[in-house]
């Protein structure tokens, strides 16, 4: 061997070793990066910021997250276009002009790639329109009454597992410029899709009983808060729960004006009296885990909704009628619900924020029964070994009295959203609508609520009050008042 050849070989060796070292460093750095897309403006942060619900841990064993990586998420609607004719908007997602992702979907670089997650806005932002032809007005913090979360989750799971979702199909849909990084392309080649399918299959198997066809659908504007949680966090075998426990769909709430709510019994059944713990629990529902949660970003949202004012009723109010309604309301409703001053933090009524036993309130029992003593016991170990560990959850025996700030935007009413308008709620149960439609955003000023029937509304979720969990009985307060008083109360409620 000549010395020259030896020198070349030595140089090659060094070059090769350097490349390997560089490669390892590159992989380690790429995997270690955890960087959310950030927004200085708090409203933008609320709509698009990350609370840490994107998957973390390691590529081989991801922790948390329900959505696939960014580039796959973007390609799902086109790969499974037969299941999703109008993209994610089919499920009631709101996409603002010029935005890359819908409201409620965040982006974060984790595990070497761009990931997406859900944030608070997905369930707590929606739109209102004055008339069928009018432009939608986006309202932050209101219940996402248009969102079909169950349909969305099912679509993402099904399409991720669809045989048409292949690395080639994803690559074919990448943009020419600004596509994924070299590292992500490498992951795509190295079995990312297969691992994703295994993770998603596991997730789908876990939550399938809660999404089963024989259960009433959540429909637009509702979510089964705790059943998917039982399987995702604790790996309970949902198929072995007692009959009925798997029916727990209830309305999304508004999340404005949280400060005066601290210490009140929150959630529909009043199972928690800490705003912060309730927030962290809701974050679990969006896909965070105790190890992937972004406490700083969540706190920004928390501080903002602490004092976020409820939107004022934008249409005309008959002042004289509202004034006539006020004393009737004060006599009949204030004790449990407070009055119009709650929006300014004034708490009236001795029973506000307390739980009324089911035997007294008489509304549908399913949501209450889906939250069990055993479940609360398990929750106490969430966020373990930290200042955030859950300790405020309690099993209750009824539903909580909630303050009514911004109530005009919180239709349909009752915990399960079984009564479309405030005016309907003041009727005895047998005279409330038996079947109506949820998810149409045109406002009904006469009855206060959204238009819930007619050709346009019928394009959305059909709500049948005869299904289990959908009962519209109970809460008969005010049902025997004269028509004049009912109209007056409704008018007064517009000032909340």
């Amino acid at each position: 061997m000549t010395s020259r050849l030896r020198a070349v070989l030595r140089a090659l060796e060094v070059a090769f070793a350097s490349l390997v070292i560089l490669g390892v460093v590159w992989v380690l750095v790429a995997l270690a990066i955890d960087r959310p897309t950030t927004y200085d403006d708090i409203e933008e942060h609320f709509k698009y910021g990350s609370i840490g619900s994107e998957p973390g841990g390691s590529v081989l064993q991801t922790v948390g997250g329900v959505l696939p990586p960014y580039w796959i998420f973007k390609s799902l609607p086109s790969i499974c276009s037969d299941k999703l004719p109008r993209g994610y908007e089919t499920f009631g997602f709101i996409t603002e002009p010029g935005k890359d992702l819908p409201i409620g979907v965040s982006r974060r670089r984790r595990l070497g790639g761009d990931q997406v997650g859900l944030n608070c806005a997905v369930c707590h932002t929606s739109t209102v329109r004055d008339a069928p032809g009018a432009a939608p007005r986006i309202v932050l913090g209101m219940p996402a009454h248009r969102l079909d979360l169950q349909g969305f989750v099912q679509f993402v799971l099904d399409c991720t597992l669809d045989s048409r979702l292949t690395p080639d199909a994803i690559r074919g849909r990448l943009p020419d410029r600004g596509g994924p990084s070299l590292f992500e392309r490498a992951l795509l080649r190295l079995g990312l899709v297969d691992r994703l399918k295994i993770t998603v299959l596991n997730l789908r198997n876990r939550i399938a009983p809660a999404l089963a066809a024989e259960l009433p659908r959540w429909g637009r504007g509702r979510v089964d808060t705790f059943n998917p949680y039982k399987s995702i966090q604790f790996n309970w075998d949902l198929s072995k729960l007692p009959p009925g426990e798997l029916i727990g769909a209830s309305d999304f709430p508004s999340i404005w004006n949280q400060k005066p709510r601290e210490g009140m019994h929150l959630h529909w059944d009043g199972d928690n009296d800490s705003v912060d713990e309730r927030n962290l629990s809701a974050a679990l529902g969006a896909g965070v885990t105790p190890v992937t949660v972004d406490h700083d970003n969540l706190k920004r949202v928390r501080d903002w909704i602490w004092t976020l004012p409820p939107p004022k009723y934008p249409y005309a109010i008959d002042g004289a009628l509202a004034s006539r309604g006020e004393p009737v309301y004060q006599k009949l409703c204030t004790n449990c619900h407070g009055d119009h001053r709650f929006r300014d933090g004034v708490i009236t009524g001795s029973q506000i924020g307390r739980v009324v036993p089911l035997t007294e309130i008489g509304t549908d029992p399913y949501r209450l029964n889906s939250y069990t003593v055993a479940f609360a016991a398990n929750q106490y170990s969430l966020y373990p070994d930290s200042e955030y560990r859950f300790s405020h959850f309690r099993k209750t025996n009824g539903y909580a009295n909630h303050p009514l700030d911004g109530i005009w935007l919180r239709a349909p009413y009752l915990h399960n959203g079984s009564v479309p308008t405030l005016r309907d709620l003041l009727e005895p149960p047998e005279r409330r609508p038996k079947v109506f439609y949820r998810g149409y955003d045109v406002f009904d000023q006469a009855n206060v609520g959204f238009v819930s029937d007619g050709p346009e509304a019928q394009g959305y979720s059909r709500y049948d009050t005869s299904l289990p969990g959908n009962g519209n009985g109970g809460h008969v307060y005010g049902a025997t008042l004269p028509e004049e008083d009912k109209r007056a109360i409704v008018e007064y409620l517009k000032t909340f």
Partner: protein
Amino acid sequence: MTWFTSTRPPRVAIVVLLLVAAASFFAYHRLLREEPAPYFESAEDHFLYGSIGTEADRGLPYWIWLVLPRVFPEYLPRPGGYASLGVLARDGQEMPIGLSKVTIGVPRVGINCAMCHTASVRASRGDVPVIYPGAPAHQTGAQEYKRFLIACAADPRFTAGTILGEIAKNVRLSLLDRLLYRFAIIPGTRRALLRLRDDDVPLTRRPDSGRGRADVFNPVKFTILGQPIDETIGSADMMPTWNLARAERTSFHWDGLNTSLREAVASSAVNEGATVWWLDRDAVKWDRTEAGRQSSLRRVMEYISALKPPKYPFPIDAKLSAAGAVTFASACARCHGAGGNQTGSVIPFDEVGTDRSRLDAWTSGAADKYNAYGDRHDWKFSGFRETNGYLAAPLEGTWLTAPYLHNGSVPTLTDLLEPPESRPRRFWRGYDVYDPARVGFESAGEDAERAGTVFDVTQPGNGNAGHTYGVTLTPGEKRALLEYLKTL
């Protein structure tokens, strides 16, 4: 230069020494170092969550304990984690009732008294349960809890990869901790649980204890007392632990096998795994009174001495119960009334006639051994003995001690006043909805079957015969007597 070269080997040695020292310190820190057990200010919380020294020997590393129900849900009777075994939780406490958490190297989970001596009661299915510390844990499957852990360890998926993967969903452990769990703590825990399985094998040949019962002494008898393995069945109802200082409480356990409350408490801790050196340390603290430095067992003892039996929480017909008081005085008070001349004494088997398995499970040989167990220690036992019958306990909080008789073979007081052949032959134990009409817990029906374990009186040790006192009373007298028993 010579100085430099001559010290070179020692330098390497120093580095090695330092590394070994650091590794040893880490190993000590994570495997042996014991932090003071968490202090609970209230005596009740100490009873429910405090340590009685069972963590060092039998304690399960907390993170493993936390994830086992999530990794192996199929070994639990139904969804619900440990709660599905009737293990209770309350007030947002991190640990369930009856399980203590102490750091010995790593945080570990042990058992305490409340595991078997705290009850849950609901008025109806939709009701929020009321927790009664000190009451028999009629809903808890203590044997099921142990066997769940054993089943997990026996499963080939009990591997570092699986368990660390699940732990990673809850907490970020440091790299060193992960290595320690992977190579020492997880395999070590598995081995310890498999040893527990070996000890449990002879017991698996007997009928399961089921909810609210335990065979407390046989496991101790065959292990630390070194008695030959026999076929006796020691399963008995968990007992109420209240008012234990009252005059008639002169002996403890169903057959009165010990005559000292302090020994009954300390030996119960031994039965659950408290170590000799922990008992030594606790005995040293016996007379201390400063908060956080008292003897744990003494706090427990004083708590259960002073604890009052809970009042019956449902309506009572005062007129009827007054009539029942007369019947009680004539038919029951001699053995069960305050100041009755037999109250608190052992009634010979020939007289009471209830199932004798539990009596036969404890022998004078075992008693002698237990009395010798603490030789040369401050807490040495001397009150163990063999008796010839079952204790006539003073009746208090009786409504909450269902099912009845020492083996819990009769679901309600109504059934107990029937002749044995008319008592239920098959029922479910462990459901916490109360039945005020029959005075006991609901023991049949879909919900009771889902929540509990079946009890079959034809199984060995489960006989429901004997104690036929009162069965010949008229129906009216029985109704009145039942009403009066609610007031006790």
